[in-house]
């Protein structure tokens, strides 16, 4: 089991949802309004007047074999409009209840 944490420009929310559905990933947790900025080129997404964009974050725990497909689709999504901003981070799930 792996945890995939996806942070992305709110504008991409529906598409991220679509990807999850496509891969039959049922469980996820989502924060609609989160702030952040990219480490490299990513513009701040603060939801302020200066930086009006906002991020959303989705955290999903999936079987290990699903991860590459998910990351692949997310990469594709990001490459269509890189300026919007999308990042995914994967880590191990130690235990579950």
């Amino acid at each position: 089991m792996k945890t995939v944490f996806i942070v992305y420009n709110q504008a991409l929310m529906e598409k991220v949802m679509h990807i999850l559905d496509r891969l039959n990933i049922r469980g996820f947790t989502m924060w609609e309004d989160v702030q952040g900025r990219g480490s490299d080129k990513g513009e701040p997404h603060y939801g302020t007047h200066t930086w009006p964009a906002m991020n959303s974050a989705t955290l999903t725990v999936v079987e290990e074999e699903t991860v590459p497909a998910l990351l692949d689709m997310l990469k594709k999504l990001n490459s269509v409009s890189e300026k919007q901003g999308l990042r995914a981070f994967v880590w191990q799930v130690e235990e579950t209840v």
Partner: protein
Amino acid sequence: MKITKSSVKKPITTLLVFVGLMVFGVYSYLYLPIDLYPEIEPPIITVNTTYDGANAEDIEENITRVLEDNLVMVSNLREISSTSRDNNSTIFLEFEWGINMDEAANEIRDVIDRVERFLPEEAEKPNLFKFDVGMIPVMVLSATADESYPALRQILDDRVVNELNRIDGVGAVNIRGGPTREIQVNVDPQRLEAYNMTVEQLGAVIGQENIDRPAGDMDIGSLNYPVRVEGRFDLSEELNDLVVSSFGGRRVLLEDVAEINDTLEKMRVDERTDGERGARISVQQQSGANAVEISSEIMERLPQIKGALPPDVELTTIVDTSEFIVDSIDSLTQTVLYAGIFVVLVVLFFLGRWRATFIIILTIPVSLIVSFIYLNLTGNTINIISLSSLTLAIGMVVDDAIVVLENITKHIERGSTPKEAAVYGTNEVGLAVVATTLTVIAVFLPLTMVGGLSGIMFRQLGFIVTLVVSISTIAALTLTPMLSSQLLRMNNRREGYGGKITDFSQNILKRLDSFYGNILGWTLRRRIVVVIIAVAAFGGSLGLLNVVGTEFMPMADNDRISAEIELPMGYKVEKTAEFARILEEDIGEKYSDEIEIISTSAGQGEGIFDDSGPNVIEFTFRMTPINERDRDIFEIADLMREDLARYPEIVEYSVYPGGGPGGGQMMMGGSEIEVIISGHDIDASMDLAEVLSERIDEVEGTRDIEISMDRPRPQLEVEFDREKLADHGLRYSTAADYVRNRIAGFTATRFREAGEEFDVVVRYGEEHRQNIEDIENILFYNENPQGNENPQGRMETIRLRELGWVEERLSPPVIERLNRQRTITVSSSLHGVALGEAVENIEKVVGQVDTPEGTTIEIGGTVEDQQEAFSDLFTLLLLVIMLVYIVMASQFESFRSPFIIMLSLPFAFTGVFLALFITGTTLNLISLIGSVLLVGIVVKNGIVLVDFINLMRDRGLAISQAIIISGKSRLRPVLMTTLTTILAMMPLAIGIGEGAEIWQPMGIAIIGGLAFSTLVTLLFIPVVYSAFGANRLRRERKRMAHEMGFNGE
């Protein structure tokens, strides 16, 4: 914004909400009546008191002063003036505009009730009279006739007046001129004396003979019969054989003592249309009725009415006020349409895409139509003000949509789907859009709170623009993103014809962007030069203020000129009419291309406020429509004045372009200067007035100088010796009646024929009323002389000359008062000269004249209104500037940024002055209003630019980089919103069509101010920003570092 999200999610609901709004708007539009102005109730009430037998001074002392002293306490009173003449006192109370006149009237009634007991007992109860706009005729028709002339009045009464009265909303219909049938019993005094009869007896006999009387009823058998005594004359000739008395056993017939004429009433007024005899019918509207509806209804019925008239009677329209209204409204509607077309072109040019253009254009009808709902719900009309508001708004309603759409497009170009772009793109700029709308509202809403006449005029403007702009913002936040999400496509491949246009315009705009970037770089390097140039331009424009004249209201050409000409006192109507024919011919020939109809009335009118005399001629010229004429009515009026000055017979003349004095001109603009001379000594004031009127005549631009007090007019006065009257047992009133009955005559009875009644008037025959001697010869009879009982019991007879005397004297003066002081006013209308300048010159003249002690001179008239309105507007301007500052400061959360933006304001005024100077327009109420409105329109550009520079700075760019990038990025939205507003104003500023003159100054002022201030915003504001603009980000970082003790790192 939630509202955006849900409207994008529910496109059908959003669409239908706006469709519903539009349907309601169109429905409202269809039921809206048309009028020239919003409903205005003139705030004037007159109090009229009759006190028979008192002379002007007594009236002034005992009635006018008592009433005035108490009426001043009525609230909201602006001015109180009065005229006291023999037997009558009239007080004019002028109130503040916009107050409730019913309340004012009640308050006046209370005052009158309270002071009534201080008035002389014989005086009648004071009458209240509220002046009503409805009193100005909506329509004036003239009727001319040949063989039907003697019966013309009757015919008109039957077939025209009755018909017109039936039309809904028509108030009084009056006939002026035209003959009235009258049966005259012209008594020969000598014969009457021979039979020992008086005129009164004769009248009584005629009255007693001409009766029908019901005499009860009788039952005969089983039937009931009413009984009637019939004595009415069937033919007027029957009067001849009427037995009036018996003398020496012989019957005396009426024809023995008098000549009976079944003829026409003596003409008091001679009415002509294009020189033909006739009568004039004036139609007034009921208060609250709609002039346009009434006149279109009349026009519809007129052919039918004409059909029922004898063939020689012709009806022509002399004045139709609705014509001007309809034409003005039509031309304004056209203006709105042109403005719309210009806006569409600008948007298309900048965006280069049909779909985007369509989305933006759609906000125009959606938001404009809402104003009709407002007008309908508040019971207003479509008028010049409401339509001009729409012209003003049309360029502004697209602004929000443009900003929103621009941002959405940017998001789509970055790769969002239209739906997401719509939501997030709108959210990003939503706040800025609301803020700019708030600044506009901050300007227009206070407009609804201005007092005075200008307040009434501009309340609608304020409400409509506020409403329309608010709706346009709502549409920009809902409809625009919704449509964008539905209509815009991700790939913007443009091919074919449309693509070429787009490429063309986008190329130009790209080049413009980089050109502007270069200029900005240049100016930022030479800040001092730019500041010096700007300050010099502003300073220079202040100099223009002296060159640009001021005036109150611009005047409009409504195809009408009227003139009033006074011939020497004592001219008979016939002689006046004769002279009128000469004038008609001369003037008609000279201006044959321009005058359509001349309508003339010579002699005494019949209206309440008509103070014309038999020696006065009134002309109404109906001119050809303005586009068929080279000269405007003002020019023609000037030429006519020159012509009239050439006739030696004319004592005084006034030519009123635009229609009569007062009523017609009140709303049409036009200025008048009044020099008010106050002082108790009337003779001294009058002398001064004469001197002043001559001097003012020499001042440039003054016309139609008039002294308010009439020149005294000769009259014959009969005075009786009271002791002698008493000796013969006569009362003064009896004696006065004797004289009156013989000269003016009295109605003895009414002769009935075909359902109509005509007066039978008994008086001395004309040949016995020729000179003073005839009056002196009037014979008095007394039945019961005191002291010397007449032995035969017969009546005693005395001639008037034994009881009193007749003298020729000048009529007593009419005493005029203003604010409880005796005054004489010298008034002058102006043409071709600015009001401010003329006042200055007249003040100079007044300064040169010696003023006797106890006399003061003041200047009033339109100047007063102007000063009042201008000071109202300046207060408004201050208020507006403060409000706009507050709105901006709270948006930027800064004191400095709004200040920088507001630096463009002075230049807006520079632009206004420049534009006024170039076009030769004056600074008047309308252009001033335009300048006030500019405050809200001008700062919008500044907000867009400074906001973006702030943004770039906050995002960490260096100041000059931030400025240049923002400048390049904001140039298009700024140019686009500015161009839409300017081009939308263009049709108004060019001023084509009827009545356009009124609104032209506003268009010119806004275009000039906006164009110039936009230039300043684009060049000067960045320079100022670079000098003063704080870097919030850096300051914040410094503070934080300081707080945490990271200093020096």
